[in-house]
């Protein structure tokens, strides 16, 4: 009876593959959010397709988390249109949230419960319970490598385990859309790799992922498409490869060393198409790196790294190198 009252069709079979719909998972047009007079989100257009991993990158205060909160119906939109999973967000937030899973930036697990109790209680918020959910919980614990930890109290879990549990919890209602706010911040490299693996598995099962991140590597590896956001607006959008091709020269040479400032004045400026100076490092961007490399090989006092352009270069070019508090 509780299930009928709370969520009539949330119980789904435990097979995780869903049919693809041609309808966009998220459609936002001219989305705006004002806090007082300040436009925290200032005319954002977004279209997230089913089954893709969409990343939202931006410095602190760019409006990423506010955009996510609007997607969830956690905060009302100030302007524009927003549809998530076919539902207009403000009117049908409850039905929409029944099909979404959320991994928040800060874990908000119940410290008074064990791992399995956390999952059972969270399931009850969706009106889910009984033998079906017990089976699903067992699957989710296996999926997130927490099988041995079902009875463990939350305070005995490491940061990585807590994040995996939060992911398991976010999947308890078998959502079509998973929203993750900085999912691997604070995790060690092994924990991060495991999480990425699991997220890729979810993508292969047809789920749609939207995530925000500061880790350019994460954006490059996981995301099909990425939007770089700053001051409430989207500066550029596309696949990581497209963005890199579009904004960054093919060759990047980072130069370090005590005399780098001098070298920059003398040769760096002249030999590269574009140069950026950040602290003790000079970033040289060029279509052809031969001249640079020849020059640098004659300078044993300077260290350098020659690499292809990456998302961090895109990010820093679009949003600048100034500190954002």
């Amino acid at each position, binding site marked *: *009876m*509780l299930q009928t*009252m*709370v*969520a009539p069709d*949330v119980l789904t079979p435990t097979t995780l593959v869903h049919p693809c719909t041609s309808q966009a998972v998220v459609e936002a047009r001219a989305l705006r959010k004002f*806090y007082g007079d300040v436009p925290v989100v200032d005319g954002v257009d977004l279209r997230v397709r089913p089954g893709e991993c969409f990343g939202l990158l931006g410095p602190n205060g760019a409006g990423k988390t506010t955009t996510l909160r609007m997607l*969830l119906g*956690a*905060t*009302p939109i100030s302007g524009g249109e927003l549809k998530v999973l076919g539902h207009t967000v403000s009117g049908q*937030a*409850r*039905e929409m*949230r*029944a099909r*979404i899973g*959320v991994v*928040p930036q*800060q874990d*908000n697990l*119940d*410290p*008074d*419960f064990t791992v399995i*109790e956390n999952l059972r*209680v*969270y399931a*009850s*918020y*969706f*009106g889910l319970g009984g033998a079906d959910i017990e089976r699903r919980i067992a699957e989710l614990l296996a999926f997130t490598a927490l099988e041995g930890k079902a009875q463990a109290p939350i305070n005995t879990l490491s940061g990585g385990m807590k994040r995996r549990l939060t992911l398991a919890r976010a999947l308890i*209602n078998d959502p079509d859309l998973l929203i993750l706010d900085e999912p691997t911040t604070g995790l060690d490299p092994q924990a991060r790799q495991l999480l990425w693996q699991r997220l890729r598995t979810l993508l292969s099962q047809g789920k749609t992922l939207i995530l925000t991140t500061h880790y350019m590597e994460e954006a490059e590896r996981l995301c099909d498409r990425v939007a770089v956001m700053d001051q409430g607006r989207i500066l550029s959008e596309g696949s990581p490869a497209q963005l890199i091709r579009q904004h960054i020269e093919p060759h990047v040479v980072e130069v370090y060393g005590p005399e780098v400032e001098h070298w920059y004045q003398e040769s760096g400026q002249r030999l590269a198409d574009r140069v950026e100076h950040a602290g003790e490092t000079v970033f040289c961007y060029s279509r052809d790196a031969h001249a640079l490399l020849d020059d640098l090989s004659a300078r044993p006092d300077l260290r350098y790294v020659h690499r292809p352009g990456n998302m961090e270069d895109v990010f820093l070019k679009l949003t600048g190198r100034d500190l954002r508090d």
Partner: protein
Amino acid sequence: MNPGLPTISLRWLPVWRRNFLVWRKLFGPAMLGNFVEPMLYLLALGYGLGSFIGPMQGLSYSAFLASGLVCSSAMNTATFEALYSAYTRMSPQQTWPGMLATPLAVDDIVLGELLWAGTKSLFSVAPIVAVAAGLGLVHDLNALWVLPIALFAGSCFAALALVVTSYAKSYDFFLYYFTLIITPMFLASGVFFPLDAMPLALQHAAQVLPLTHAVELVRPLMTGQPLPNPLPHLAVLLLYGLAGFYLSCVLLRRRLMA
């Protein structure tokens, strides 16, 4: 700001149940606090002070006090739960924001929390009534009506306390509520002495207080005195409860869904 009336459904049940499951795990220390304190008052003041005091409204002081303490215990337990425990779930623990990412809404959380606080009042009052009965301070089985009244009154007090919680930026804020509202009510609503011991102006003022009306319901039921018309007293408590429920929904929607 969303000033709409609260939407009522059965979605408060998972919220209530979550709190119940935590309580069941940890209930030792909390039970002690909710139960031992009124018992100490009853024994120390009822018998200690009472040995100097003659009949009060035809009752021994212990019998008079026991029924008052039942009401104040319901009020204190529910208030504490809807202030400190609710704030913990709202802010440091982020339990409520976690719930809001699911099909639950703020209104469901508020209703679940106030009914849970009322349930805790019931759990704290039951042993007091049992011990009072054991000490011969209870008149007859009509005293069992006190239990649903504790659940009801506790929920109303909790609804008021949630309004305070919606404003709180830290636990310290609650001291204002205790010092300015709860403690004066505790002392001037007929718990420790009859209202007619106070000056007339204060007696009239006390009629506005919800605790006064809880006492007016509970004392007759526990002591066998006549209770010709319970409805006005229930109505006052209900009005406070409904006002608190509505206001806390509006304020918490604003705070949590900004």
